[in-house]
């Protein structure tokens, strides 16, 4: 599921779990029945659609499977071994890393730029704020179609511009390197609305007196940006970076619509590889091993994010 739109978990942290709130005496005896009734539905759903499939994926990853996904032969870690030895899988992993890294860096850079531009006090600035957050309302397939047209051969905007300027026409989506550029650009564009809103909120939270003090103390606007703005929003930057990172690792829709993993597997990112191996090739055992690797990467990143939010201290 394309869950790029994650809200900002409040900085109140998970570690306070252990803290008990004071409570009255009534109703305690029956608490466990009430809890079962209240929590039961959620636990059932999570059990069937999250816990069970995770274990099942792990299980399947240790087997060879038939064409409907039934395990046939236990092979231990052989599926993993095959993957690590496969140059195709390594290429997919590498492509994913390039994609993820570029998406995160570009999303944050442009996001900060947009947010910084939007905190200026100018007439009509709220129009720009609205515009900058607009891609928040764009779903993955709409984004893919808009950009597909821009990058599409001959009729697309870029090729027409190139032709009218007598520049060489690039086959964006059918040239390996350029196809990667195309999906990176499209993903960044789609991410910007959400990133902008979060970073803009963080910038607005910076007390203006800090800038006043810096200005009086002789700091230039550039110095203020580097030594006041960036440190002040660094917790938010980190949060945005991890959300974008996790989202990028999970990218599927844009790739499916724009390049279908091609050309020449150049944009065959991890989730797409899982989809191909499981649902197009029917190689469920290997796809499960790929899923496990994906799960470990994402779980690791999420864990880092948790740890950080837990440690994160709100100033004052």
């Amino acid at each position: 599921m394309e869950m790029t739109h994650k809200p900002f978990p409040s900085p109140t942290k998970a570690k306070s779990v252990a803290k008990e709130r004071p409570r009255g005496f009534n109703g305690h005896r029956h608490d466990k029945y009430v809890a079962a009734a209240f929590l039961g539905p959620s636990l059932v759903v999570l059990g069937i659609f999250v816990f069970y499939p995770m274990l099942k994926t792990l299980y399947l990853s240790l087997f060879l499977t038939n064409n409907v996904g039934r395990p046939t032969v236990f092979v231990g870690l052989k599926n993993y071994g095959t993957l690590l030895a496969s140059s195709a899988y390594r290429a997919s992993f590498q492509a994913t890393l390039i994609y993820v890294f570029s998406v995160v860096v570009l999303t944050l850079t442009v996001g900060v730029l947009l947010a910084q531009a939007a905190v200026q006090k100018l007439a009509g600035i709220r129009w720009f704020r609205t515009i900058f957050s607009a891609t928040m309302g764009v779903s993955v397939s709409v984004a893919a179609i808009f950009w597909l047209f821009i990058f599409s051969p001959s009729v697309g905007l870029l090729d027409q511009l190139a032709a009218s300027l007598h520049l060489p026409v690039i086959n964006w989506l059918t040239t390996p390197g350029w196809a990667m550029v195309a999906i990176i650009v499209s993903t960044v564009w789609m991410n910007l609305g959400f990133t902008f809103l979060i970073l803009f909120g963080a910038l607005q939270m910076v007390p203006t007196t800090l800038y006043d003090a810096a200005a009086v103390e002789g700091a230039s606007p550039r110095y203020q940006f580097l030594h006041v703005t960036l440190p002040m929003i660094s917790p938010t930057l980190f949060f945005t970076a991890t959300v974008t990172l996790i989202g990028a690792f999970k990218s599927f829709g844009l790739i499916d619509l724009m390049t279908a993993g091609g050309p020449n597997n150049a944009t065959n990112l991890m989730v797409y590889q899982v989809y191909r191996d499981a649902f197009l090739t029917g190689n469920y055992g290997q796809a499960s091993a790929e899923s496990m690797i994906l799960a470990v990467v994402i779980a690791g990143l999420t864990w880092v994010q948790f740890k950080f939010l837990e440690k994160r201290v709100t100033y004052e």
Partner: protein
Amino acid sequence: MMQINNRHLIWRYLGLGLLALLILGPFILGVWTSLLPTAEIAKGALIGGPVSLANYGAAVHQTAILRYLLNSLVIATLTTIAQVLLCSLGAYAFVFLTFKGREALFYVILATMMLPFEAEVIPNFATARQFNLLNHYAILVLPFLTSAFGIFMLRQAFRQIPGELKEAADIEGLNPWQFYWHVVLPYARISLVTLAAYSFLGSWNQYLWPMLTTFSDRFRPVQDGLRQLQSQETFNNWGMIQASAVIVVLPTLIVLFVGQHFFKTGLNQGATKS
């Protein structure tokens, strides 16, 4: 800001304008080409041709775009209602009830936030097939009836509710359900609305799961509907595809802008002394 003279102002607006163009460019291009006949687009004649709403008519009449929108609306609405209900009930248990293993259970749920649904589609698909749920609204809603993230978020919100309220309710003899319904939910309504918004968006934007589990226009949600249009007989009918994309994006954009207006008003009311 010190002494902004006119030349500075022009540069600032120029910068803002460029950034706005970067964001709006694809929208503008999409809307513009949706008004052009496909033949003109194919010739590369983006300017000067006749402009009409014909593509919209074609999209509405020749494709199932409206059905896709309806499907997505149904799925997203059901998902949102279910998530708000189940997550708030779950969060309530973690905040207001004491039972054995409460903390351990909470950590277990927290841990599921780390597991990507994308890595679990293989067994989930098998489950759906086994229970004959493929190609039906149910399979698009069932896995998302609750969310670990929602429980986590609402738990944080419920913890802000003063303990005295619970004590007062105990003294008054309210049962857990009454306290949940009459005190907790109204108290945390802002968090509930936030969760609802994210559930809705999350459901609306789903792509991989519906693609795997729906095969007919009757249940196909809009993201995969657009994929269908783009890959099928209408291939290269750019005008109509762009029109469909615009039809899909318009409602969310409107909701977003209206929502922002309210959001800003709320902010302004909170503004105080300079």
